[in-house]
């Protein structure tokens, strides 16, 4: 089945079995193994990528449903010789150990900050509407919004440290 995807800003053509998930398309067909498979059932977040600006579990969606969609993977956020500040913060704060959940954590965090900025409430939010000042984003908000990404190495404290640093800086930069 032919599908056109815009992956990390590049047009990519895929011709694959319609059963191929977006995750397996990236990993097995398009040479982008950054997104990881931890469960294939939407239970762990390791496969998180950003589709048209929103984070999705790429194991839960078929590639052929995304004709024309813009997909950002970890490789599009930054490569080893040109890391994004968020990736650098993960390195600095040791926001990982084995590294397997990490691309999913970073993609998720990137989209999560946009969601918070856009005023999407979370389970722990006090207010139901209104943009959130990222410089005030609390640890509890970060933790709740990142709870779809399991880290069995349990770098959670460090992941929160890394995201908080970027969230608080981000607001400073745009203010």
């Amino acid at each position, binding site marked *: 089945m032919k599908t056109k995807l815009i992956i990390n800003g590049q047009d990519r053509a895929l011709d694959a*079995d319609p*059963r*191929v998930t977006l995750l*397996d398309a990236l*990993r*097995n067909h398009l040479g*982008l*193994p*950054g*997104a*990881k*498979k*931890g*469960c*294939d*059932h939407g*239970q*762990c977040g*390791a496969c998180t990528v950003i589709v048209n600006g929103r984070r999705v579990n790429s194991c839960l969606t078929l590639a052929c449903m995304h004709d024309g969609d813009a997909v950002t*993977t*970890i*490789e599009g*956020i*930054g*490569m*080893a010789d040109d*890391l994004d500040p968020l*990736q*650098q913060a*993960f*390195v*600095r704060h*040791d926001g*990982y*150990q*084995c*590294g*397997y*959940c*990490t*691309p999913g954590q*970073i993609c998720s965090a990137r989209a999560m900050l946009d969601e918070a900025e856009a005023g999407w409430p979370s389970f*722990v939010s006090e207010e139901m509407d209104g943009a959130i000042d990222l410089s005030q984003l609390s640890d509890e908000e*970060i*933790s*709740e919004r*990142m*709870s*779809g*990404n*399991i*880290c*069995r*190495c*349990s*770098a*959670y*404290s460090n*992941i*929160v440290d890394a995201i908080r640093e970027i969230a608080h800086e981000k607001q400073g930069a745009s203010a």
Partner: protein
Amino acid sequence: MTETRTMDRPDRRNILDEAAQGVIGTPMDRPEGKLKVSGTATYAHEYNLPGTAFGVLVRATVPSGRLAHVNETSVADIEGILGVYSDERFLRNPAQGGANEAPVQGTDIDYFGQAVALVVAETFEAARDGATRIQLRLDADDDGVFDPASSPPEAQPDEAVDQGDLSAAMADAAHSIDVTYTTPGHNSAAMEPHCSVAEWQDGNLILRGSYQMLKYNRNEIADAIGIDPAKVRILSPYVGGGFGSKLGIAPEAVAAAIAAKALNRPVCVALTRQQVFENVMRRSESKQRVRLAADKDGKLSGLGHEAWVSNLPEESFAEPVLQATHFLYGGDSRKLDLYLHRVNRICAGSVRAPGEAIGMQILENAMDELAHEAGIDPVELRIRNIPDMHPEKDIPYTSRKMEEALRTGAEAFGWDKRPAKPATRREGEWLVGMGMATAARINMLQASEARVTLKADGTAIVETDMTDIGTGTYSILTQIAAEMLGLPSERVTTILGDTDLPPAAGSGGSWGAASSGSSVFVACEEIRERIAERLDCKPDELTLKDGQAICGNRSTPLADLLDSDICVEGRIESGKLSQKVQSATYGAHFAEVAVNAVTGETRVRRMLGVFGCGRILNEKTARSQCIGGMTWGMGIALHEDLMFDLRDGHLTNRDLAEYHVPVNLDVPQQDVIFIDERDGESSPIQAKGIGELGICGAAAAITNAIFNATGVRVRDYPATLDKIIAEMA
């Protein structure tokens, strides 16, 4: 040449402290970090070799019996199917850690979920379809044992201690405790599902796998498929978490190798998440009885710890629940016994901190019960019971920072604010309490080898088949070599995870850092001597720093000094010292919890771990190991629970939606304090293990805090809300 050091006597020279580079112990970022955060570190599944076929394992749906027939025609019409494999060489279960030979093999079925066949196809989708549709004829036996308690317990004589008279001590005690707890099974649930890509080249097997202890894994798979180990190469440069689950060669590797041989092309077999639960090691459930007899001041006169665990027939592994109980606390009268039940369930084996993870948990719950009974502060009770000598072997301890950890932790956590009387602090609908526990874990040094090459251009390479499973091996071996050779860490490259390199101890039992680190140290010491020779100076007068060799008032760039590479292999072995002293790591856990008075839900608010693990090689990765372990303690205390159906032994919660591991919001910001320590009796780099200590006792600190908050003791883990609310007044 190989330089060998045997640990027959202490090494208190603290050479790493004398060295001048100043990189050892620092919180250096992981050298492989850039690859991990950009998704370009290569895990087993990610090689995409040309012509790779994909295999999916098929499980048995009877708990006991045999595979009688595979109906290959049932999948013949699926486009892309290449073959269906079942074989007498298939593994019943993974090899135990360090087994060094194949585990039980064959097509007999001993547990529900056992992998019995492999469907291979051109694509993953076709293989998955085939694995769902394949028709197997399974002849079922009706002799399965599904309730561990229904099989006769086999005593484990090596674990048994019968010293003094515990019954008399209990009868005479001013304060005594006799309690029984149960803990459920656990799964490591590493985020990377096990995966093997097998490829044959000229009769040699190349296995890209997700494994922790390669030198053993090579022999295990060679034995399983019947070839010379010299014909096997295993590559595991990146491993997406292990926690014991990747210690021994596992069914997917053997199945992939057999299929790859038959098809003459690479075969990739990844476990599904459900198969990770069913086909790799579970931590055994346990029943544990602890008896404590104490005088009026809380000093123990007697200690009893009995435990009942389970495993499959023919497996010798019995969760070593009593491992820390043997040496941690005094008490002249002692009765320790471990029993193993045989059961048709997933194989039991090592899951992070086998033994102490659940043994320390219950011992520390019992100590909390004794403290409450005797009206003695729990921290004080522990300190009063630190023995002078090993209470069973009468040998001394190596460096032991237990009291410092307990006192430091109490001070830093604000332990004095804990109300001694339970259920007295309430904030709205939350009941708040504090708890603590001692942490302890045995420490071992294992044979390990590494090659260090100081290149003529003044850079260095460290090579060993050691693995980094997230533990920080890339970092610490780089730092040891950089410190010893006086090089900025960017000038040292560490290459791991390849059986073509010198065989290391592997990542297991918390021994990886101290053992593989010592082998690098031994090699570097020899290189230093050779540099000293060239400068005509004594090794202890040589200073190496920033690529300069300094002797007296002469400073020479290494690159000028060397006309060729210096290459040395270092080997460390445990020696006579290990029998003469008890080596272990110690610490203290402190937790504050809030328990909802309406629902019984527990939230951990704060957690502090204080640890003494010898020299800290990298403060950042060491801390990460500890917070990881502490989080596992939360999981064990509150969530994790493998649930087996007692009618056929099948695991009912075999995915991450049903088996609950802690997620981000479950975990508060954690604090870790390291006690400065050098343990020259444990390794020549004065370091000890750190990967498992963080769990040992952690769950008890949380459940002891629940008791302090509510007055409820949950003696059947995990402490879920239903169990707490049922007991709340």
